[in-house]
């Protein structure tokens, strides 16, 4: 089943949210607009709406996460849903229960939605394919494949700062593209919005094969890559990547690809700096940049709640249609 037909219903509405691929431009904009309406809610004194009252949402995390899980939990609570957090580490897999068995057991508890993070690419697709018809699945990150809500909150943030016309924007994504589900989802979203120039910047060891086929321009030199950039998205460099044969040292990476105020001089004067977090200060960027006036890193986190509220309520709206 294609991603589009798996995550959308017959009327083109969200049923699951698995990847940016398979969305159309209008649906993406609808999600962003819905998120905009929820952004107001999160700024009120009473931060709750009753949209998902009585619904049960399970955060099913097979991989450690603080930020993503917390914002999903807050988003669900602000929609008045009941939330269950289940962290299944590798040791549970050793007990022998298969992913499918875990799923079936939770379904038996009448869960309405799964928010899933898993180390395997395709895990959210797998769960959506095997979940009961009334259950929605939201992908909170699967392997290197997709992290669509993160990409949406990044796009939401860019739209707030730069306006809705992505055609005039030059966006540079810097860092470990090879292992990054965030980068893949961002690239699809930026392409869906017809972004003028999408660039990825990294040494060859961190760029996937045929990266250009994703619809990006590839740079191996930071200053060339961020020249005249309106937005620079830094990616987290996992510590364990330093120990393999991918990079010689944090020091050399910082020297060549770390963003400093000085290097930012070649970017657009009103460049926006983003990072999905958590930041390695002094590796991907220095503190001056992270905490500087161009940085919207904390806004990204705030927007994450509104975007996740939008996705959850839209997917659950479909579900209401199913049960009626």
């Amino acid at each position, binding site marked *: 089943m294609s*991603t589009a037909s798996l995550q959308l219903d017959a009327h083109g509405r969200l049923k699951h949210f698995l990847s940016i691929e398979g969305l159309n431009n209008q649906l993406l904009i609808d999600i962003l607009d819905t998120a905009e309406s929820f952004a107001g809610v999160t700024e009120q004194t009473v931060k709750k709406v009753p949209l998902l009252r009585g619904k049960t949402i399970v955060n099913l995390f097979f991989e450690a996460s603080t930020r993503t899980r917390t914002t999903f939990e807050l988003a669900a609570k602000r929609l008045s849903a009941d939330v269950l957090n289940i962290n299944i580490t590798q040791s549970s897999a050793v007990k022998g229960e*298969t992913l499918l068995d875990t799923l079936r057991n939770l379904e038996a508890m009448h869960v309405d939605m799964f928010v899933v993070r898993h180390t*395997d*690419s395709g895990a959210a697709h*797998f769960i959506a394919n095997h979940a009961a018809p009334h259950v929605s699945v939201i992908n909170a990150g699967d*392997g290197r494949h997709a992290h669509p809500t993160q990409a949406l909150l990044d796009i939401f943030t860019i739209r707030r700062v730069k306006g809705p016309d992505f055609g005039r924007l030059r966006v540079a994504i810097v860092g470990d593209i090879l292992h990054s589900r965030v980068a893949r989802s961002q690239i699809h979203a930026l392409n869906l919005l017809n972004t003028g120039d999408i660039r990825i910047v990294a040494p060859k060891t961190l760029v996937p*094969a045929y990266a250009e086929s994703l619809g990006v321009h590839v740079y191996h030199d930071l200053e060339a890559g961020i020249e005249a950039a309106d937005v620079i998205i830094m990616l987290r460099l996992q510590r364990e990547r330093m120990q393999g044969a991918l990079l010689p040292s944090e020091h050399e990476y910082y020297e060549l690809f770390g963003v400093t105020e000085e290097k930012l001089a070649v970017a657009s004067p009103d460049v926006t700096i983003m990072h999905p977090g958590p930041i390695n200060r002094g590796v991907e960027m220095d503190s001056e940049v992270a905490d500087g006036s161009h940085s919207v890193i904390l806004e990204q986190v705030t927007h994450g709640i509104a975007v996740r509220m939008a996705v959850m309520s839209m997917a659950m709206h479909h579900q209401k249609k199913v049960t009626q």
Partner: protein
Amino acid sequence: MMTSSTQHPDRIRISGGRVIDPANNLDAVLDVFVADGNIAAVGTPPDGFIADHEIDASGRIVCPGLVDLCARTREPGQEHKATIASESLAAASGGITTLCCPPDTYPVVETPADIELIRLRAEAAGKARVVTLGALTRGLDGEYLSEMAALKKAGCVGVSNALRPLANTQVLRRALEYAATFDLTVFLYADDHWLSANGCAHEGKVATRMGLPGIPQAAETAAIARDLALVEQTGVRAHFCRLSTARAAHMVARAQFDGLPVTADVAIPYLYLTEIDIREFDSNCHVIPPLRTTEDRQRLRDAVQRGIFSAICSDHQPHDPDAKLRPFPSTEPGISGLDTLLPLGLRLVDEQVMKLGELIHRLTAGPARILGLPGGTLAVGSAADICIFDPELTWLLDPSTIKSHGHNTPFMGWELKGRATHTLLAGRLVHTL
């Protein structure tokens, strides 16, 4: 095995079929006469031949029983997936009379007793010949040589380390030398373990988009380059198993041109599927080596047609359903292929990739020669392992028609053309449709 003269005294006349026997350059409508488990005559009956049984093969093809270079029966050790009995039944119904099993069972095939066990189970099942490759290194650990002389004496048809890596190039060199000492063919799986580690898809556009850890073309070609250098050094007879890239086919062709004693095969799914088929995370398309590009598929087809690959195998890997019910990278690789070897092969003829005689050669005499077996022919006096198939019969591959215990195939739901109507093993009818 199957010295059937006492058990099966039937004299069989197979009449009116188009007999294709590439080993003898034969392609004509002729009768085939079977007596005492052997081919008694082709064309004119032997003096005084009276058939106990006649098979009307008009409109059908009569050819040697198919020889499958690589089929896992999962026995011993993984009987929850399949057994020698279940898979030799599937083989018979697919027109296959000889299965060659790699040694990576549990335990691995590394002693005469292991070979004996498989032989006894196959004889008890009585549906197909099952031959085995012995382990190249002890326990397939890649470090210590196996007792190859004993393995050969016990009847293994070659040695292999299956998909497991060798510890280093020196071990490989010594293993090849030792095998050459006993005139054993070494079956090599061309894989640079360090380049392919953790990968589950061809390192290309599709894997990049799907975020699947990739296996580069160089994992195959770097290994072939090394192995060819060692073949030249040691003089061993080597067979490259299940190549997946255009570049590998080119390298083998070049080595053959240079006179090195190397052969190669391809598994039939690689002649149809490409990296594009793994989109939507279809775990039935998770195979090792990975499905490559459309260009690779075309060049693999060319290489089979030209005889650079002198065999097409099923690379049969039956699985229990749970093995595929996981996210793509965590599924067990492999396709169940015995049921589809013949019809998918015939589709190559329909698609004008090769002539029918060429296809049958790659499925019979070609692989038999690689294994050093006398089969794969309808020559008078040879064992009457015969496949009779209807090339026009269309059928649907679905859970009710598939015979293998493994239902893990991306061809499920395909309408296939061509099906074995009768299979004879040493003159005994082991399958009728």
